[in-house]
């Protein structure tokens, strides 16, 4: 049973990784990369490491994504200034 869950999660993870690299839209790519961490944190739970799972979920998928988005936001504002 766990094997199947792991397989499903893993394949989802890999496909979102590929998606994160292939997507043209940066925001979508970043979200997709965040999903990887989220899925990974589920795998951590399966590996009986709740501490790590919590951290990965909070930092890997949460904060890292926010940091990415904030940066993109800054860059876009800069771009907007240049255009204007």
């Amino acid at each position: 049973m766990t094997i199947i869950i792991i397989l499903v999660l893993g394949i989802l993870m890999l496909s979102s990784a590929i998606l994160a690299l292939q997507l043209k839209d940066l925001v979508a790519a970043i979200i997709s990369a965040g999903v990887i961490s989220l899925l990974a944190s589920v795998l951590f739970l399966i590996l009986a490491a709740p501490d790590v799972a919590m951290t990965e979920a909070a930092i890997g998928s949460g904060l890292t994504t926010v940091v990415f988005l904030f940066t993109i936001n800054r860059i876009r504002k800069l771009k907007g200034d240049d255009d204007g």
Partner: protein
Amino acid sequence: MVRKIFLFIILILFLYMIFPLISEFKILSQIPDLAKYYLEKGPDELGSANLVTSVIVSYRGLDTLGEVTVLFIATAGIGFLLRKKSRISLTPNRKASEILRTGSAFLLPIIFLYGIFIFTHGHLTPGGGFQGGVIIASGILLLMLAEISWKMNYLILHWVESLSGFFYVIIGLLGIFLAAGFLDNRLLPLGDFGRLFSAGAIPFIYSFVGLKVGSELVGILTKLQR
């Protein structure tokens, strides 16, 4: 295209190189002696129910101090790199929705309390300073996104960040005088196993770590946002 094929070959060669790491893989039925030591002696030596916590805070406490430091350096580094006023206009694009604003005002205390719970119970339940810190930071993030007219009090943030870090080091230092070494948590009595105030200094260390990590993460976010 040629380049991609070339890169692909390189990765294949890498795969071949690390293949034994996978092929020689056996799930450990026997875990290493060192791990056994932690599992067997850890609860009694340090009095923490969460053994990951006892490894993080005490046995490998220097790593954790280093880790907090890395985050601190990153905060300082980001502040340093972004020290010059950038050309960005700081006016918000649009007002946050009413729901988000009231919702976050309502949620904030709960999130904070939860964060504090996590890092004070790090020796008993999963989680600890880092997780608690991140939760607190996410609370403040919510605040930032909601654009509530609550001027973030940077001074408080600053004091919390500086002092929590400082006290963490002080507790570590006290370990030298009151216990067997730097970052030894046994400078306080271990107390009753499984209680909130037990496991020596671990709850205190983790509280400071939590505050420190939380304020550092908030620092990173605000610096990026500004």
